[in-house]
């Protein structure tokens, strides 16, 4: 125990044991590290620190603000040396540009006739790790479509914006490519996106439902959509 304790002390920057007396294991010589005489008054360090902070202050106080473009390229070498170093984004007037792959709010895509593309297959609520999607299916009335969602709701407060629902969707019904972040709300109920609100952001999709089928390897013509009804839009 004692040996390991010594080792522990040596490994750190603290008091260093120079030697251990033979007669008594507890009496040992310890090297004490004292500050150098020039550091005792802290004057040199204070002057150096003041030099750094006052340089920043003078630069930021007297030179004009950087343009929004310069600030967007944060960390990059500064092009204009006669601008200051303030990186603050003035939020309501200026906004940070989101990265290209930012997903944003969901939207529901439409068929040619303006109906929702979703067939209520329940893939997305199944894969959703946050359990934020609620779908209640109903009869579509159209025998080519069979099912459609009566209720399609996404709780944006629970959504983790992972995009798994988009990957799981077999018929390009849900997308996350709006680039808008969830709007701030005053009431939690207002944070729930409904089918209508998501359809409002959606457009008509021309994707062929079902893909190329078993002939995908041969590169042959796409198999006609076996359920029909919306395959004639390509």
């Amino acid at each position: 125990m004692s040996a390991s304790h010594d080792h522990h002390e040596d490994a750190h920057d603290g008091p260093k044991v120079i030697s251990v007396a033979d007669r008594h294991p507890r009496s040992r010589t310890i090297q004490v590290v004292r500050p150098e005489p020039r550091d005792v008054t802290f004057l040199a360090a204070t002057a150096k620190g003041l030099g750094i902070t006052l340089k920043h202050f003078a630069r930021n106080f007297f030179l004009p603000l950087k343009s929004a473009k310069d600030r967007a390229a944060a960390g990059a070498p500064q092009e204009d040396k006669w601008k200051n170093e303030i990186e603050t984004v003035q939020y309501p007037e200026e906004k940070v540009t989101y990265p290209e792959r930012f997903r944003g709010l969901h939207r529901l895509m439409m068929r040619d006739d303006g109906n929702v593309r979703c067939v209520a297959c329940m893939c997305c609520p199944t894969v959703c790790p946050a359990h934020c999607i609620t779908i209640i299916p109903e009869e579509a009335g159209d025998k080519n479509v069979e099912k459609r969602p009566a209720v399609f709701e996404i709780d944006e407060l629970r959504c983790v914006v992972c995009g798994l629902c988009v990957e799981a969707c077999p018929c390009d019904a849900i997308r996350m490519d709006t680039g808008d972040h969830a709007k701030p709300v005053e009431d939690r109920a207002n944070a729930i996106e409904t089918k209508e609100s998501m359809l409002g952001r959606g457009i008509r999709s021309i994707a062929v439902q079902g893909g190329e089928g078993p002939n995908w390897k041969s590169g042959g013509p796409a198999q006609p959509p076996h359920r029909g009804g919306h395959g004639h839009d390509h």
Partner: protein
Amino acid sequence: MDIVYKILDFPATKWVFLIIALVMPLASILTWMERRQSAMMQDRLGPNRANIGPIKLKGILHFVADAVKMIFKEDFIPANVHRGLFALAPILSIAPVFIAFAIIPFGPTIYPHSLTSTLDPTLLATGQSPELFADSIRLQIFQIDFGLIFYFAVLTLANYGGTIAGWASYNKWALLGGLRSSSQMMSYEVAMGISLMGAFLVTGSLEPGAIATIGASTSMSGSNPLNWLWLWQPVGLVLFFTAAIAETKRAPFDIPEGEPEIIGYFVEYSGLRWGLFFLAEFIEIVFIAAVICTVFFGGWQVPFLDADGFRIGGYVDQITGVSTGGSVWYLPHAIVVLLQFAAFGIKVLLLCWFQLAIRWTLPRFRADQLMNLGWKILLPLSLANVMVTALIKLLFMGGPETP
């Protein structure tokens, strides 16, 4: 008309003028300036939004918003506190600073009968034609011979505010903060007093008005920057500045407050009572700046501006009032007074700015480090400063003056 001059020269009038015209605006603006300046030093922008309609002024109105918020916050008094002392503590910490301002000369003596004409230093020094200099208004509230000793005595009382607040709050953290506040005073107070003794020796006076007016030597103009004590007492200046920052209880010596460990002696305070502690801290900054400005930087003196106007190259002997050489640009007395009052404000503002710069540069000291600094470094250095100053005075400057 006499009664008007009498009222204007009445200490309470001057006190109200000083507090309303200089101290409170400066202290309020400092609350905004501190956030703004620290932001600038850290490549941020700081608060710049507070506005009244279109009047924005780079957010300088932030202190109004702060004040309104503090006034309308609930004045919460926790259970089990000692109510009397709890209410007394904020007043105890802010009142001594206001009292100590009594010794600060914040402008020259105004001679109302010669406001429009140029003063003659010779007449002023020899005391001829007293009707010109009658009804004078001295811009200093109390001219007392022991001026700076009075400041030490009174400002020490401000520590009781913190200590009593800690004790009355019925809170262990507040009590620790209060105890640290008094232990911190032990560390710096002795060195602070002794670091100014060199300045007393050089000028032969304890009275801040005399120190600001005369400077180090009577054979130079008081307005000559080389006559100010920063040149004659550089060690004293550094030592006093260090101790004075400890006096304001701010970083690097903000031991009584500590956000990560004990919150501070005002942990149980809210609303305007807390605001009084906060304001007391900023008024202390202004006061320390005023003392340093008065003792070391010529107080209200504008460089090369004597009582009759700007004088380049020559000097006015302060005992006989005889001016020698140089070219003079004569100015009426009223302009001179205005310039000198403005100079005092600008000097104090710059020294406040420097205190804020130090506060946002240095990390905080531990209590034992401050003890070491105060007793093992500041105290011996200030004693040595007194000895060396006294020796130089004795050997080269003809020994003690006999008043």
